[in-house]
């Protein structure tokens, strides 16, 4: 029986030769992740199992990244609970403020993700690691608790959609534009319960950071996971980050896909998702005049070094428009350090931006950049729901770092292709 990449990883971890879509399987987990919002709930549930240890203290990862550095007393108490749990249960991979990062940028960087892994995280953007050929998916806190106690979780084997990529992206077009285009194409429930599998000659032209961004937003199409094949680009990343040998799964030639979408990467334009759903995608050519108050560059979607480099390239020697607030937040301490050494942070500050410590803060309307009523933001984050970044009457436009940086200069949503001297 033929299987997709995702199905093969599930079969292996369920110790089964073959799995079929719709089948319920119990599978062994390679990694279990939680953060300062979801882990406290999981810890409460975990206590009810009355077990004296987690299944494997090297396979649980706890990252205080959402409301950190602690935004208020309640958030501080939540973080404290997680810190104490990490200490009590001798969790190897607890990342304190100062050594942490936004979880989905941090885990691959720290070498915790390997090709072929089965990973769950109590955070919906856990699907990011599919960029490295892992099956990774978001769950809730109770699943996290059960996973910490037993090292296993039940899964319904997903059907798959295939996105067959050809060609390569144009200048100023990135993985963010590609995934916004795809979500615009299939809708926010277009991949509900399913895998999004990316194949084709075009994959080779996508950087690993582009792939992280694409897989990160698979959940915004409702998908269970997104996954790329493990090619030389992925192998090179893994070789320089992960100590384990990659375990590579390829889809069978006759693997069943519910549908195949052919996508010519060269045809993708810079793309913006309008309020209040990621599926409201428009090309930059269709945007019109949209004045903005704030620009956010960062997050688990677009806070990696390559994202900061593109933004810095555009902002270098320029100053942002009057009346616009630009907030840049590198996704991890390592990225922060590298951006500092490369002089990127200086470029941002000189352009009139603030540079924040790594945090999920503004993306989910937590802290560090909340919007008032009627305010508009262009953001490189992943959601633009009602009230996502603050007041219910505020608006979020999702875009790439290039569009975001160009927009900060223009004071309105702008096309990076039209900047002089690029």
């Amino acid at each position: 029986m033929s299987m997709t990449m995702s199905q093969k990883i599930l079969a292996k971890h369920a110790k089964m030769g073959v799995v079929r879509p719709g089948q319920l399987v119990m599978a062994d987990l390679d990694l279990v992740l939680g953060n300062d919002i979801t882990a406290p709930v999981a810890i409460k549930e975990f206590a009810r199992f009355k077990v004296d240890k987690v299944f494997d203290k090297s396979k649980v990862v706890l990252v205080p990244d959402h409301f950190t550095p602690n935004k208020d007393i309640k958030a501080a108490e939540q973080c404290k609970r997680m810190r104490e749990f990490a200490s009590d249960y001798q969790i190897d991979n607890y990342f304190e403020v100062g050594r942490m990062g936004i979880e989905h940028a941090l885990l691959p960087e720290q070498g915790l993700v390997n090709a072929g892994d089965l990973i769950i995280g109590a955070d919906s953007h856990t699907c990011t690691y599919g960029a490295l050929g892992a099956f990774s998916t978001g769950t809730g806190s109770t699943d996290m608790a059960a996973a910490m106690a037993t090292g296993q979780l039940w899964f319904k084997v997903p059907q798959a959609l295939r996105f067959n990529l050809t060609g390569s992206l144009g200048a100023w077009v990135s993985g963010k534009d590609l995934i916004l285009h795809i979500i615009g194409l299939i809708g926010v429930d277009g991949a509900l319960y399913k895998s999004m599998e990316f194949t084709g000659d075009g994959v080779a032209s996508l950087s690993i950071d582009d792939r992280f961004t694409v897989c990160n937003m698979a959940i915004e199409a409702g998908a269970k996971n997104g996954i790329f094949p493990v090619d030389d680009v992925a192998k090179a990343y893994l070789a320089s980050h992960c100590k384990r040998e990659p375990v590579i799964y390829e889809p069978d030639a006759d693997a069943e896909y519910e549908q195949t979408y052919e996508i010519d990467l060269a045809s993708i334009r810079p793309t913006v998702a309008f309020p209040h759903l990621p599926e409201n995608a428009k090309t930059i050519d269709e945007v019109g005049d949209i004045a903005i108050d704030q620009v956010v560059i960062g997050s688990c979607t677009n806070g990696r070094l390559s994202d900061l480099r593109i933004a810095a390239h555009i902002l270098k020697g320029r100053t942002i428009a009057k009346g616009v607030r630009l907030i840049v937040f590198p996704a991890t301490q390592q990225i922060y350090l590298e951006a500092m050494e490369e002089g990127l942070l200086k470029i941002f500050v000189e352009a009139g931006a603030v540079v924040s410590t790594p945090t999920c803060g503004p993306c989910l309307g937590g802290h560090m950049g909340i919007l008032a009523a009627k305010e508009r933001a262009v953001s490189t984050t992943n959601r633009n729901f009602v009230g996502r970044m603050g007041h219910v009457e505020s608006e979020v436009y999702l875009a790439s770092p290039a569009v975001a940086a160009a927009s900060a200069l223009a004071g309105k949503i702008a096309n990076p292709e039209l900047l002089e001297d690029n």
Partner: protein
Amino acid sequence: MNARGKAFRYGDNVDTDVIIPARYLNTSVAAELAAHCMEDIDPQFIKQVKPGDLIVADKNFGCGSSREHAPLAIKTAGVSCVIAASFARIFYRNSINIGLPILECPEAAKGISSQDVVEVDFSTGVINNITTGKQWQAEPFPAFIQKMISSNGLVDYLRTEVLK
């Protein structure tokens, strides 16, 4: 197990950010979360909801974040069942795991208006609109999921049924 109450009716893609806005996620106390349930889509909800009432919505209910605080807020607010044309997958799983009954039934979702009195039989999957007299058949949960919901969720189910 049955549910009976008035329906609160919503549309497509009700996301977890409007069910429980992130600004309230600095606590995991269920009652504190419930006090802000549905606040950004319907500020009247929490003032009007009575124990046993239902939420009825169109497609992709619960899309967005994995916050279990969303079904927890709904359950703690007294909602006995959520009926939708479809659910986002993490919300679906979280609801079962914490013992919040949910049913996928596009026809029922379409045929129920705000304030209609609705009755649900979880063992058969039959949904009755008492106000209009219409009836629909949803796929009932398999026995182990029904048991999980009636045991108050995954943890108690595993403790009493699997790890005993």
